[in-house]
């Protein structure tokens, strides 16, 4: 049987193809954006940022739960003023969660390195 092409290889192949298209004007711009979006997909497949984000939030909350549940709980408690920006450990946990997503969405964003090094 022929070698199975993995999802990531497939996405990268499409990204390369889109990047190589000879286009002009708006279409060229949208092709660049499209290739960038495929880059996000490839990194998300490789890095599993949701797991890293869930680990960061679970560390703060002190228990495991599905990521969306933990996000909703943190938002709800911030809205109720049960959590505040001064709550110990909160901004650190949110920083770790954000870094995991930003490494996927835009690894070249300048604040990524500055926030990660802090």
């Amino acid at each position, binding site marked *: 049987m022929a070698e199975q092409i993995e999802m990531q290889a497939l996405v990268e192949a499409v990204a390369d193809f889109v990047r190589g298209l000879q286009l002009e004007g708006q279409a060229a711009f949208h092709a660049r954006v499209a290739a960038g979006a495929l880059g996000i997909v490839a990194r998300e497949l490789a890095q599993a940022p949701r797991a890293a984000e869930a680990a960061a939030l679970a560390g703060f909350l002190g228990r495991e739960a599905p990521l969306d549940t933990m996000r909703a709980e*943190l938002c709800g408690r*911030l809205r109720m*003023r049960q959590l505040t920006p001064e709550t110990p450990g909160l901004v650190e946990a949110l920083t770790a969660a954000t*870094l995991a997503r930003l490494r996927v*969405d835009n690894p070249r964003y300048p604040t990524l390195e500055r926030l990660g090094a802090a």
Partner: protein
Amino acid sequence: MVLARAARVPVRIERMVALTGGASSETWSVDAQRGRERWPLIVQRAAAEPEPGTLARAAQAGVQALAGRHGVPVAGVVAVFGERDGLGDGFVMDRLEGEALAPRWLKDEGFAGARAALTGQCAAVLARLHAVPVAEAEGLRGGSTNAQLLAMFENYRRFRVDLPVFDLAFAWIAERCGDAPADAIVHGDFRSGNLLVGRQGLVAVLDWELAHLGSGAEDLGWLCVNAWRFGVWQKPVGGFGEREDLYRAYADAGGAAIDRARAHMWEVWGTLRWGLACLQLGHDHVSGRVRSVERAAIGRRVSEVEADLLHLIRFGSV
């Protein structure tokens, strides 16, 4: 017909080129001939569904012209479409010479002199705008800082997403913003991408569709949001200047003295507002309002905003 009425001499249209077109607006570059003169124009027209929170084009033309009368450099308004024109909501303005692509004038060597002058020019222009009596602004909406914060929070909740960093930023702002009255005409979108720049610096302030009544410091904070620096993050004022120079020039030009903590609060506010715009643009695609790969991709810029918010809140700047 609209142009003939404005020009009072025979007008001929030589060429029309669509600059942008979409579900919410159209912009045309028009080469006209007025008598024997060349008459370069821009036409802006709203399509069926305007972007949420934006002014009608006619109102936009009104505030642009008002700012112009008070010495703010703007493209002169030539004509506003009336009901009898049957052209919908739109207006015609002069097309000025200059570079509107911020990444170009922020990085091109030929604009080094312009960049050096721009911080002082922006400060002076904003001081002039914020000194315009609020009573002269017809039909502009606005509210106290508290009312605006509440409106922004309701806008966030419309998307039914849970972003803890956004809620953290809302809580952080609520602790600090107080309830200052809306005492100035605010451009509302005063950033590098909306400045027309020539070799000497600022030529005109563009895109008045988010003008409203608010606090002048809001415009200064928005100008310092990281997204408008196009990667030149070391220059907090729009990718070309320093905060202290902006505040000093603003006060020198008659603007209010800038409280540093308050200016910081407005930067956090502006960053969060850009984050909500990212949500809106992503939602436009997902909801089918405007299907576009660009809008879908901008939805993924939310994490950039979250990183900026955290850096601002933890370390006092970004």
